[in-house]
């Protein structure tokens, strides 16, 4: 197999334990065979349209545009996709692939629970068994998604190792796969991990950018000046950017600034904090200590709370093609509030990182420039985090009443 295909510059690759070799060979062979297969494509397009609800709208945020008094702001509404985020694009694509490969069971890792939820839904739809690995800490803070996965018939398996967050869930899923490769597909949720995942996830997410390109040409007759997306592992950003890589369009990735770049509580990997490493079977930038162990990260949004980043993004950053910046937790909450008040749209905390950056940039640009922001998900899932911030007193009272009500019912 040729070296170039497995790597993006010097990043990526496939640093897997030998036991997984046949599983990866099988997956790679199947993916590169099926991705251009007309029947596979037709089935995927059908599912995208009728199950996911694609295309998602490209929405002109008229009120915010006039408030900010600069560039025109467009939102790509991935939050309107089925299960509430872009994650479903990849989940449906890989679930279809798994089915074609004759697999009976899907496993997945999840942080925020959005990818787990999408995978659980896709598994239910395709009639596949589903186990989702989730760190105990994430389970505690994202309970609504834990509940949702269960309703879709998936088993959520708590991961109690290490920091008990997304990174440990990835390790647990990989290990589980080594124990049961023959009937199981590992449905990895972002554009990272060992080859072919970064390329495959990018391909399944590229529909985001393709739709944006078509719509903006129709509406504005030209390409946008800037595209802005939040970056966890990198799937919604590369999905938006991929089709524009060779166009004269500025690409901006926004990482989780957490409590600030000068604290230890953030997930900023690309602005000088992360170092190159080989972790979880791929080479990229990681937040790590001097001994090569991953650092614990922090973000108000569980979906961006991860120490690694997709290898293609690392490469495109080195090349200067993508610029990286960050938004801190307080800016993110303000961006959620502003978007909700002014546009009647409740973005996910992850996506609000991209919005925060857009709100900083828009006023500095002239009225004929265009910014497209990827609203990768909707914010309903975050109500237990944003609730106390938006309306602390009543939210607490509501929860207390709920507990009373439930205790009354069960006692």
């Amino acid at each position: 197999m040729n070296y170039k295909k497995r790597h993006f510059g010097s990043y990526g690759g496939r640093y897997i334990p030998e036991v997984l070799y046949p599983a990866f060979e099988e997956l790679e062979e199947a993916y590169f065979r099926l991705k251009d297969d007309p029947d596979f494509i037709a089935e995927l397009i059908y599912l995208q349209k009728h199950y996911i609800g694609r295309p998602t709208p490209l929405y002109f945020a008229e009120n915010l545009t006039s408030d900010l008094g600069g560039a025109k702001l467009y939102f790509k509404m991935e939050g309107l996709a089925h299960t509430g985020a872009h994650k479903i694009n990849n989940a449906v694509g890989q679930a279809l692939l798994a089915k074609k490969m004759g697999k009976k069971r899907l496993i997945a890792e999840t942080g925020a629970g959005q990818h787990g939820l999408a995978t659980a839904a896709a598994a239910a739809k395709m009639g596949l068994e589903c186990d989702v690995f989730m760190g105990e800490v994430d389970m505690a803070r994202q309970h609504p998604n834990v509940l949702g996965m269960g309703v879709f018939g998936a088993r959520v398996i708590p991961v109690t190792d290490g920091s008990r967050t997304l990174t440990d869930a990835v390790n647990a899923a990989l290990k589980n796969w080594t124990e049961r490769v023959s009937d199981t597909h590992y449905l990895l949720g972002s554009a990272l991990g060992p080859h072919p995942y970064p390329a495959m996830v990018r391909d399944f997410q590229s529909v985001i950018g393709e739709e944006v390109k078509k719509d903006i040409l129709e509406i504005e007759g030209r390409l946008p000046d800037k595209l802005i997306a939040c970056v966890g592992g990198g799937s919604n950003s590369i999905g938006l950017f991929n089709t524009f890589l060779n166009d004269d369009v500025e690409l901006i990735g926004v990482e989780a600034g957490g409590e600030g770049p000068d604290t230890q509580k953030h997930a900023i990997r690309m602005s000088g904090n992360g170092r190159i490493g080989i972790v979880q079977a791929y080479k990229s930038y990681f937040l790590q200590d001097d001994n090569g162990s991953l650092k614990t990260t922090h973000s108000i949004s569980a979906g961006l709370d991860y120490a690694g980043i997709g290898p293609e993004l690392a490469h495109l950053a080195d090349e200067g093609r993508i610029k990286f910046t960050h938004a801190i937790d307080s800016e993110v909450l303000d961006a959620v509030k502003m978007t909700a008040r002014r546009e009647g749209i409740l973005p996910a905390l992850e996506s609000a990182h991209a919005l925060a950056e857009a709100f900083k940039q828009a006023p500095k640009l002239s009225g004929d420039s265009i910014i497209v922001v990827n609203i990768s998900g909707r914010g309903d899932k975050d109500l237990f985090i944003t609730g106390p911030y938006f309306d602390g007193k009543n939210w607490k009272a509501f929860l207390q009443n709920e507990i009373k009500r439930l205790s009354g019912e069960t006692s």
Partner: protein
Amino acid sequence: MTGITRLEKLFKDTPGVKLMTHVVGGFPDIQTSKKLIIEMANSGSDIIEVQLPFSDPIADGPVILAANYTALKNDVRTSDVLSMLEEVRKEIETPLLVMSYMNPLFAYGFEKFFDKMVSIGLDGVIIPDSPPEEKDDDPAALCDERDLAYVPLIAPTIGDKRIGQVAAVSKSPFVYAVLRLGVTGKATNLEDDLLDYIDTIRKLSGKYVAAGFGIKDKSQLEKLKGHADCGVIGSAVIRLINKSIEEKHDPVKAVGEYIRELTS
């Protein structure tokens, strides 16, 4: 005499199934891990592999993973493990391998790390996430240049053709065969097909074979006779250390007794 030469001599000169035991550097603490290594050597271990603690050991099961985390919580660094091994080397002649994932070595610098190993008198490395296709850092070649044994890992899932390829990446006199699917630490029945598999590896690699993952008692080691050249014990030792600590016994003494029993 160190490195490939020392290991070659061990396999050539010592009859029967040899024993390789595993320690996580800095578990349960750095001083105890030093004593454990020395005690293992004195009780009959033929080779000792010392793991560098790491946050993301993707090929290890829960027992070894938890030991990694204990060491990291104790703030054990790669340099601490190397200093400890430097002291150990002054006391024992037993072959010592470093087991590490790619990133701790990458962070330290592969060449710098291997040079340090040579200067201390360590003998080889086992890297579970370093497949032969990834040539960027090529630890196998760097080890060959230094007469360090880069010990390839071979899994039962891979085909015959690949066994030969993987075994041929370095000049190591032996390969490490993974006896069961999955990760370290769950029981292995040494069924006939696994023994056949070891024979196949021996034939196709043309090298000595250490067989590991899941072995814990003497009867399992005995079944390897005539098939493998070495049995590897990992999680079982760490379980014993955990149990000893829990019961307020000396883990070093317990491990010594256990190994003496295995090698008697």
